[in-house]
């Protein structure tokens, strides 16, 4: 399901589905299904969620959990529930995963559960069929998903074809599973100031428009504060003008391309991850390297061209060693 959502957000277009936020549905129980130790005092717990519908019938109910506790990280906060008739209890179809630091007690009150779904006869909320869901508007952002962002950079979502609800409580946003409580809201834009942290930034947004339809956005951005200065040279150490592309090894679609003019360049905003560098010289030369941002501050990229073919018509030794420079002793035999 997440991959489908990622495809949608990759196009930086998120539909406003016809699903509503469903306050009449609430979590009643978390059923532990699996636990796994992932660090000293750190465990990942997988839960099925039981919820109760005290309102009208609801179709294709989806749930989301966020955490406000410092010792709880939401690893997978989305879970499908399915159809819920009025006054029914239902266990989620899939699970949610919480990483809990056991050095502090687990406080379920720090978790917030929210639900979306549609009444009978209306399309449901984002699912595997998300692309086909009815759309009444669009969320978009000018923040490039496929380049490196600055740490503490701001992030804005714009809505077209609808207006954001005026009440902030109808907005839920999270960064890497933690609730983002500070934002400025206007009818057509919501801005999260100083949002990005170094590394991966998983942004999830739930909200209502002014007529109560729900909006949803889910995307991963990468940000960093490390930089590297570099030059591009040929095999003789002579600077070579080249286009240089820096790619994030975790997701090679995240890139930054600069043009090298023969003077050392400084490129910034890399997270502390492995960065792959590829240089394409103006005369077709090519070179590549890689570095770990933060542990290396400079690099020299050596590019090489493709030499002309050797002027030797006897490359297959059909004429013995004619045209070859042979030193030492030995036997050369052409195998059938």
């Amino acid at each position, binding site marked *: 399901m997440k991959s489908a959502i990622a495809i949608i957000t990759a196009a930086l277009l998120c539909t406003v589905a016809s699903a509503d936020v469903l306050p009449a549905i609430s979590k009643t129980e978390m059923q*532990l299904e699996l*636990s796994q*130790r*992932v*660090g*000293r*005092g750190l*465990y990942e*717990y997988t839960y099925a969620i039981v919820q109760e519908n005290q309102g009208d019938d609801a179709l294709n109910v989806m749930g989301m959990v966020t955490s406000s506790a410092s010792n709880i990280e939401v690893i997978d906060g989305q879970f499908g529930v399915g159809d819920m008739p009025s006054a029914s209890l239902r266990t989620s179809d899939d699970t949610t995963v919480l990483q*809990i630091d*056991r*050095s502090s*007690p*687990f*406080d*379920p009150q720090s978790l917030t559960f929210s639900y979306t779904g549609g009444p009978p006869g209306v399309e449901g909320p984002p699912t595997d069929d998300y692309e086909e869901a009815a759309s009444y508007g669009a969320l978009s952002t000018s923040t490039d998903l496929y380049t490196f962002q600055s740490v503490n950079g701001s992030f804005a979502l714009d809505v077209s074809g609808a207006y954001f609800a005026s009440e902030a409580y109808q907005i839920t946003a999270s960064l890497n599973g933690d609730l983002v409580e500070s934002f400025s809201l206007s009818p057509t834009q919501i801005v999260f100031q100083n949002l990005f942290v170094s590394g991966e930034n998983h942004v999830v947004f739930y909200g209502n428009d002014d007529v109560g339809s729900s909006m949803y956005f889910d995307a991963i951005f990468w940000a960093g504060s490390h930089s590297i200065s570099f030059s591009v040279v040929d095999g003789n150490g002579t600077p070579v003008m080249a286009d240089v592309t820096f790619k994030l090894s975790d997701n090679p679609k995240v890139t930054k391309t600069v043009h090298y003019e023969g003077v050392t360049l400084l490129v910034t905003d890399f997270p502390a991850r492995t960065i792959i560098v590829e240089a394409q010289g103006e005369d077709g030369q090519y070179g590549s390297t890689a570095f770990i941002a933060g542990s290396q501050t400079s690099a020299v990229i050596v590019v090489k061209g493709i030499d002309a073919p050797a002027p030797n018509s006897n490359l297959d030794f059909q004429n013995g060693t004619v045209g070859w420079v042979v030193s030492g002793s030995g036997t050369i035999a052409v195998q059938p």
Partner: protein
Amino acid sequence: MGKTSNLVVLSAPLDWQADVYQPDLLIPADGFVDVYTELALLAQGQTLNGLSVFFDWTGSTLPVAQGFEIYDEQWNIVESGYTTLKVSVDEPSTLLLLGIGVIGLLVSRLKPSKIK
């Protein structure tokens, strides 16, 4: 869920660290004692004494052997089992069992002597 509470480490072997994580009924999850070292080497076949854990036993019957797990540095379980109960209990009706000595490693992590 186990039937222990109020875990306390009374002593740990030299150069071994012992951290206590209390049971959490709201998860729900058992408590455990995490024992590890970055300084000492526990060679193959070698035994080590000196870990002493105190806890309240809330069960209505005699306490049973406690589970343990041994992890590698990637937190994969390389060994698991149960401790052997070596101390008899004179008053099984009481909920507090004192002085149990080396009950065993509830959760331990062995690590090579390599010093980071």
